[in-house]
């Protein structure tokens, strides 16, 4: 039987972003016919507990790309988010069942569904663009929290400086930015 005789059934519902993606159609029937229980929003959780939980949930994701992206995002923004922003972030990282979707929305490969659009998604999209061309080589270590707990609310600028210092000590190679160690 000639190998070229087969052809994918449907042209594809949206092009595949996957790396090994020469596979045809994705009917997504499993997502429709096997509904998972609705995501339980925690309405009476104190704000500091919510932050601690979201920190864990930002750092522990299904694939490396999201682990790095969300943990650096969390380091930069989590401690200064308001309660409503935290609720948006909670829904964004916990409700979708496929971690790749969050990555595709953040990189704007696919449009973000309405329910997840908002301030926090905008922050994430902008953050993902990496306009400063930083090297995002790994999830940051947690010591920034210890330093923060000793000070008052640090400014975004201070947090950026801390983050950059850490990256320098860990990896010497930072493109185009002259740092003093």
């Amino acid at each position, binding site marked *: 039987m000639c190998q070229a005789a087969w052809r994918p059934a449907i042209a594809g519902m949206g092009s595949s972003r*996957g790396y090994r993606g020469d596979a045809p*159609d994705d009917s997504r029937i499993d997502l429709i016919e096997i509904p998972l229980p609705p995501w339980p929003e925690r309405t009476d959780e104190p704000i500091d507990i919510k932050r601690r939980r979201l920190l864990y949930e930002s750092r522990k994701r*299904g694939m490396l790309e999201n682990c790095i992206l969300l943990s650096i995002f969390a380091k930069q923004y989590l401690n200064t988010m308001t309660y409503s922003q935290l609720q948006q972030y909670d829904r964004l990282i916990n409700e979708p069942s496929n971690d790749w979707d969050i990555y595709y929305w953040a990189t704007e490969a696919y449009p973000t569904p309405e329910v997840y659009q908002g301030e926090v998604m905008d922050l994430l999209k902008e953050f993902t663009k990496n306009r400063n*061309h930083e090297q995002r080589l790994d999830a940051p*270590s947690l*010591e920034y929290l210890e330093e923060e707990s000793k000070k008052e609310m640090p400014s975004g600028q201070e947090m950026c400086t801390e983050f950059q210092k850490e990256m320098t000590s860990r990896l010497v190679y930072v493109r185009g930015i002259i740092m003093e160690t």
Partner: protein
Amino acid sequence: MATVRAASRLLSKRVLSRAKAISTQYPVVDHEFDAVVVGAGGAGLRAAFGLSEAGFNTACVTKLFPTRSHTVAAQGGINAALGNMEEDDWRWHFYDTVKGSDWLGDQDAIHYMTEQAPAAVVELENFGMPFSRTEDGKIYQRAFGGQSLKYGKGGQAHRCCCVADRTGHSLLHTLYGRSLRYDTSYFVEYFALDLLMDDGVCKGVIALCMEDGSIHRIRAQNTIIATGGYGRTYFSCTSAHTSTGDGTAMVTRAGLPCQDLEFVQFHPTGIYGAGCLITEGCRGEGGILINSEGERFMERYAPNAKDLASRDVVSRSMTIEIREGRGVGPEKDHVHLQLHHLPPQQLASRLPGISETAMIFAGVDVTKEPIPVLPTVHYNMGGIPTNYKGQVIDHTNGKDKVVPGLYACGEAASASVHGANRLGANSLLDLVVFGRACALTITDLHKPGEKLTPLKPSAGEESVANLDKLRFANGSLRTSEIRLNMQKTMQNHAAVFRTGSVLKEGCDKMDDVYQSMENIKTFDRGIVWNTDLVESLELQNLLLNAVQTINAAEQRKESRGAHAREDFKDRVDEYDYSKPLEGQQKKTFDQHWRKHTLSYVDPKTGKVALKYRPVIDSSLNEQDCAHVPPAIRSY
């Protein structure tokens, strides 16, 4: 399931107020089930689903929400000889897998896996997994590396079934959804600390609830470990930050062995530092690897295949370039993958994900600059030794002995189907087949509702003491420092390039790193959602895996599959298979290396003890499927 969750929340609320009054005491809650599964990835969910369907009261303990397990990263597919694209036979798949394992795989387990593969895929389809289809409505199958027809003589086989580019996600979603209909109890965001062992019998697990800091002893007749691999022992790996070898470490602490941990698969092109995978497709489309002199060095190492040589050849070539001083960057510790000579249009249409990943994680514009890459840890062939039924085994007095009450499946286990090297798309198959095998074995040997043997009231005390010690640790070295030391040691001494003196140095350094855990410093003293504590517990687990890996690699004086040594370049089998066997003297068990490594660690000292166990060379049914005798592996 909903009732269990609500009840434990109520209980935890009441208990929490007492806990606040007692500074370092922890509230302990006991649960009883017929079976407990640790880990909710592909293998764990398949096992939990299988047991629940068979009527067993099953618990599943997971530190992540099930659909966020690392299985979701899998985009490749599942191999099965369905024969939809061309005539196919599972015995050809069996041959490919045995050869791929470099004859270190157990042929009875490989026979089981490849024979069950078509039935397993059809079963998943019946559960609701929407495999991609051909025009005639049959499951679409595509080519994947290492898969051939007619025992290697019939050309490329197309046997990889997939669900578009989200096979891993679809598997998790389908199995999780189905298991809920059978009332599986999920303990989500609970960190399993240790096995509850009593006189060599496994009686359950003890876990920490991250939400409120309570300790839970989950007692069960049967425990299944499906916690995945331990890529995070290395500086550069493609795994998520959740791959910390929790299950293999739990088994080690219980005094049981781990098998073949020195066999770590490296993928040639992961982004330097971040480790995100850059697909082989880039090189397929014309991308080339460049050293500091701007040379396309693969031309020297593989004049014909060049950048498309097999993964282990490319990885080793890259490593040799770096060791000989031709690496790039200020530390000269990686090489470049150049794509900017390709038309931007081609990059955009054929490799859409690459440009984004390179910009986000390396700050590189692929149309102008090369991507920094390094051979990156991708998969662990080794793990908890089991037989083909999924039962964990120990090896005493030259015989395999089943450990009662304990099972393992998935990347955490070593059945061993992958031997010294894993073929692409065989991993998802491994998860599904052996997850199901564990469930079937338990269903065969036990009945739902069996009475549990009593558990000592002090069971799990040591785990709680360890937790407490870590939570209040006040040494001089931070968790992140010790972790970095371990990762750099593994990367520099036990990566693709392995040679005696480098490995020995690595073993000594790793011992120092292990000892330095005594000096660890954590800063978060809280008990609710304490990420620092969890990461420190994970570091303990990673260290146990790392010491076994590097010591086993140092001892194994041959090159086989993914374990390649510069000072022992050949495979050392019982016969020299490159020559006719007649007239050859068979080497004794001690003289050759075609055997499994079993490693034990004394957690207090970090000292590793090694033993060896023979490879199973006969299939389950020699009439049906003859075993494949060893031969020289060439493609």
